C-alpha cells in the first residue's frame, strides 16, 4: 500500500486489534450488566447503574489515571497480575485494549439494555409454561431477541474504541507498534515538524473507519429487524 507508510499501516492494524479485543472481552460483561439492570431487581441497583456509567461521564484522562493506579505494576490488581501470571498491562497493547474496553463499556451496555427492556415479559411466562428454565429462556429467547441491540452496541463500542485517546495515552503511553493507535499516531504526527501530510492521511482513515462502522451498524440493525419481525 503506497497510500500509507509502514508506520501508519502498523497504527491501523494495531487499532483494529486493540478495538476487537476490547469489544470481545467487554461484551459478555456488558450483556450481563445490561441483563441485571434491565430484568433484575436488587438493592443498590441505582448505585450500580451510576457506577457502570462512570466511564461515560468521567474525562478519559481520569479513567486512564484510575487504570494506572489500579492496574499499574504497583496498583492492587496490577501487582497481583504481575506476581501471579507475570502479566504487565502497563505500556502494552493488552493494557490499551483494557482501557478501550472499559471506556466504551457503557455504549455497549446501554444499547443492549434498551433491547432487553423491549422484550415482552409475557414471552418469558409463555416459555416457562412450555417447560423452559431460566438458562434455556436466556439462550433461546432473550439473547436472540436482544441481538439487534447487542450488535449495535458492539459496533458502536468498536468505533468508539478506535477513537479512544485519553485513557490509552494516560494508561499505556504512546509506544510505536505497541500502543500507538490511529488517534495517538495523529497526535504524534501533528507534534512532529513536517508531519501534516501524515496527519491528514490518518485523519481520512479515521473518518472512513467511523463512517464504515456506522454504516455496518445500520445495515445489521435493519437486516435483523426484518428477520425478527418476519
Amino acid at each position: 500500500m503506497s497510500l500509507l507508510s509502514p508506520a501508519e499501516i502498523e497504527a491501523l492494524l494495531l487499532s483494529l486489534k486493540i478495538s476487537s479485543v476490547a469489544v470481545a472481552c467487554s461484551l459478555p460483561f456488558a450483556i450481563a450488566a445490561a441483563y441485571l439492570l434491565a430484568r433484575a431487581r436488587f438493592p443498590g441497583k441505582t448505585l450500580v447503574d451510576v457506577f457502570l456509567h462512570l466511564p461515560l461521564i468521567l474525562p478519559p484522562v481520569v479513567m486512564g489515571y484510575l487504570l494506572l493506579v489500579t492496574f499499574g505494576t504497583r496498583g492492587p490488581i496490577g501487582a497481583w497480575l504481575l506476581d501471579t501470571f507475570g502479566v504487565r498491562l502497563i505500556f502494552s497493547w493488552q493494557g490499551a485494549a483494557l482501557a478501550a474496553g472499559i471506556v466504551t463499556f457503557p455504549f455497549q451496555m446501554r444499547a443492549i439494555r434498551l433491547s432487553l427492556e423491549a422484550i415482552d415479559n409475557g414471552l418469558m411466562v409463555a416459555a416457562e409454561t412450555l417447560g423452559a428454565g431460566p438458562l434455556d429462556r436466556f439462550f433461546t429467547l432473550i439473547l436472540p431477541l436482544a441481538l439487534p441491540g447487542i450488535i449495535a452496541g458492539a459496533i458502536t463500542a468498536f468505533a468508539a474504541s478506535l477513537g479512544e485517546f485519553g485513557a490509552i495515552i494516560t494508561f499505556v503511553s504512546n509506544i510505536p507498534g505497541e500502543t500507538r493507535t490511529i488517534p495517538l499516531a495523529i497526535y504524534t504526527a501533528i507534534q512532529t515538524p513536517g508531519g501534516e501530510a501524515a496527519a491528514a492521511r490518518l485523519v481520512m482513515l479515521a473518518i472512513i473507519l467511523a463512517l464504515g462502522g456506522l454504516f455496518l451498524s445500520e445495515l445489521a440493525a435493519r437486516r435483523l429487524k426484518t428477520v425478527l419481525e418476519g
Partner: protein
Amino acid sequence: MLDVDIGLTLGTFRLDASFGMDGPGVMALFGPSGSGKTTTAHAIAGLVRPERGHVTIGGERLFDKSAGIDIAARRRRIGYVFQDARLFPHLSVRRNLLFGWQRAGRPLSGNQIDDVIGLLGLQHLLDRRPGKLSGGEKQRVAIGRALLAAPRLLLLDEPLTALDAPRRDEILRYLERLRDELRLPMVYITHSLDEVARLADNIAVFHQGRVVAHGSIYDILARSDLFPLTGRGEAGAVIPARVVVHRPSEGVTLLDFGGGMITAPLMAAEIGSRVRVRVRARDILLSRVEIADDISANNVLPVVITGLREDADGVEVSLDCGGSALVARVTPHSRERLGLAPGQRVFAIFKTVTIDRREGPAG
C-alpha cells in the same frame, strides 16, 4: 379430574376460589374483568403461588400448601393459551409449535404432530413468521404449541377477546374439535355467556375474587339468583336435547328433551345426535292456557313453576319442564295479573331457541 381450592392476596385484591370438575370436559371460569379468573389460572399453572390451599389435576397434587408441594410452572405440563398468543417472534411457526414439545421430552410422534397441525389447519403456515399471521392464525398456533407439549390440562385465558367475530367463530369451531376429538380437559376463561354455552360442561362463576357458584352449566345457568352475574339480557337456561326429525319443507328441526318436543330452525345434524339448546329468559312467555294452535310461536310446553325471584328489573320465574330447568323473565305486573305462584302449572311459550353446540351422535 380437576380440584382447585386456593386463597391469595395481591395488593388489595383477595382471591378465594374453590371449584372442581370430574372427568374430561371443559370448565368455564366465568365472570367480569378483575373477578379473579386469570389469577386463578395463573395459580393452576404455577405462575403465582397461593397462600393456602391446593391444586390437583388427575389425582396429582401440583400444589399443596399444607404438604409443602409446589411443582414449578415449567414442570406442571399445563398448556396455557394466552389472550395475546405470545408466539416467539424470531422463530418460525414450526419452531414455535415444537418449542414445548422438545422440552416435554418429545411426547408425540411425527404422525401425532401432523394430526394436531391438521386439526388446527396449520399446514400452510409452518414456514411463516408469527409477525405475518392474522390474529386467528396466531391463536391457532398458540393452541397447537400448547397441545404438542402433551399437557394434562389446557388453560385458555380469553383466547377470543383480541379477535373479530368471524375469527372468534373460527377458533370456537377448532376448540370444539379439540374437545370432541382429543378429550383433553380444558379450563376456559371468559366473560362471554355465548362461549360458555357453546363450549363448557361445567362453570365456575367468579365475583369479586370469589367463586359464588360452580357446577354443571345446565344447573348453574338456570339459577335465576345468578342472573345478575350471568348477564341479564343473555341469561337463560341451557338444556340438552336430541335431534328427532328434520322437516325441510317447513324449515324446522324437531328436538326431543326431557320435557317434550322443541321446534328449532332447520339445522344440519344427524338424526339422533345430541345438541345443546339455549332459551333466553327474556324469550319465554308464560300462559295459563294452552294456546298452541292459535299463535305463531312454535314451542308451547307445559311447565311447573318452581320458584319466583323478584328484583329491581322484573321477576324471574324458575320452571321445571319434565326434569329440565327453564327460566322465564316477566314483569311484576304480569305476575300479579296471572297470579303466578310456586307449584302452579302453566305453559311456556317461546318463539326461538339458540343451538349452541352439536355434540355428535348419541352416546
